[in-house]
């Protein structure tokens, strides 16, 4: 192979590698996470760097991790894109966004993802896009099946975080969460914002 061809080959590989980074996650690539769901050592895991059983003393017993786990694998939580940027809203035209929540919990007794929002999408405390309800055509909500939309518990209303995804078995999962916002023509102009929190918690 000539030097020119080799150069082209390396150049192409370089650009392709930048286009499709191995560690990236998006809704289209989540299937790769299921390539080997039964593997106890996913590629992202770092193993055996911390001693499994730290010594206990006569005065206390300390057990880190679960006793039947022989290969240490981290509990991982990934959010594909943390910015849900709807841009400029047009009344009566619903806008949709999605992101992927991935959990790798092969050495646990399952897990749950709890979610809540600090407040509804709001411009100020007086101007807010209400949470989506089944009887309303307007509002902001999320869906895991892209059919029925729900709302996040509201921290400003002292609502506790709610479990949105869970498993009672060891699991490696990727879940697409869809968001939708729609406003009436009476909605005041401006940039409405809020923050949504996701807490990935192993089962005990």
């Amino acid at each position: 192979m000539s030097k020119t061809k080799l150069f082209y080959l390396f150049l192409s590989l370089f650009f392709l590698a930048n286009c499709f980074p191995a560690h990236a996650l998006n809704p289209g690539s989540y299937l790769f996470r299921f390539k080997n769901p039964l593997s106890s050592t996913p590629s992202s895991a770092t193993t055996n760097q911390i001693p499994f059983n730290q010594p206990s003393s006569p005065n206390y017993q300390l057990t880190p991790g679960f006793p039947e786990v022989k290969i240490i694998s981290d509990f991982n939580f990934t959010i594909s894109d943390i910015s849900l940027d709807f841009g400029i809203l047009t009344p009566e035209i619903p806008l949709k966004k999605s992101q992927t929540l991935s959990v790798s919990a092969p050495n646990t007794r399952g897990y749950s993802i709890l979610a809540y929002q600090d407040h509804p999408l709001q411009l100020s405390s007086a101007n807010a896009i209400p949470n989506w309800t089944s009887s309303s055509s307007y509002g902001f909500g999320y869906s895991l099946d892209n059919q029925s939309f729900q709302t996040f518990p509201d921290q400003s209303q002292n609502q506790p975080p709610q479990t949105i995804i869970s498993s009672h078995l060891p699991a490696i999962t990727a879940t697409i969460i869809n968001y939708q916002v729609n406003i009436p023509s009476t909605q005041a102009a401006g940039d409405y914002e809020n923050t949504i929190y996701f807490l990935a918690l192993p089962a005990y």
Partner: protein
Amino acid sequence: MKTPFTFSPYLLTNRQGSNSTAVDLFPSLLKIFRLLVFTSFISLCHPSPAQAQTISLSLWPPIIEITTQPGQTIRQNYRLKNSADDTIIQTALIPFESADELGHIQLSTQGYQSPALSYFSLQGNKLPTSFPLKAGETKDLTLTINIPSTASPTDHYLTLLFQADTQGLISGTGSRTLGAVGSNILLNISSTNQPQPTARIEQFSLHQPILDSFDPIQFTLLLKNTSPTYLKAIGHIKIHSSLSRKTTTLPLRSDNLLANSTRQLIPEQSWHPLFPFGRYTATATITPQNTTDTISQTISFWIIPYKGLFTIIIIFLLYRLSKTLPKYIRKYQKYLPKPLRF
């Protein structure tokens, strides 16, 4: 001698010049330019997710279980890895309670302040605390638990939360999302260092009283912790066939039960006999860890291939009907109205 990849403005502009190096090089540069345009087009068509801001945290261990006495100091290492963008980690310790019978947790966010929160420090700092964590960085963190000598003998259930405080970019209306991973702490402070938990079986059953031989067979086993300290259930289910006299043992996953809570226990493996048939008995036997108090309960059930039998009977009846129906039609044809005669 050709120097094809030496960059010079001259080589780019003097296309028709006498310099043979420039003449030979231009097609190569043109190809490179086309390749660059092509690959740039590809990356525009497929925007890389790496350009979007992400959160990815890995944590070990997912749980620690501690039984100790007042006046002790305990240390545990945590490993936290950031596989996404540079971030600030906000760390907090939050009490939790059981959310269901499957071991999921519900954080106490209604202002409950456990007295045990003051026992903990991370890297020498009282919680909550924060620290930077760069992209790809892994940090080993030491959690220190100082149990005061005056601490009451009781249980504390806490979650150590690590939240990535990466700020997403929003150009108009939108939501920022933040993610956190947690690790649970089951802390039992006991004056004797040997708590004696007690439990009882609340329910041991099958999803149906009579099972089909080809259906999956699932037991429901609910254990109630009747003591004020958490326990770990050690046990198994023994299944005995009255017909074949064979016995199968299914070990139970050694799950934790919080004080005065109920949990569904799950066998480590499912039961898939080749062709189960007849009467069976199943005995669940559980011994809370570090105790000698064994509790057990036995149920009996039937497994028959009733769906298959039902199908065979239906096929047999249809076969009989296909044989006898033409005879009846021929026999009673004269009574049928003319348009219906065959």
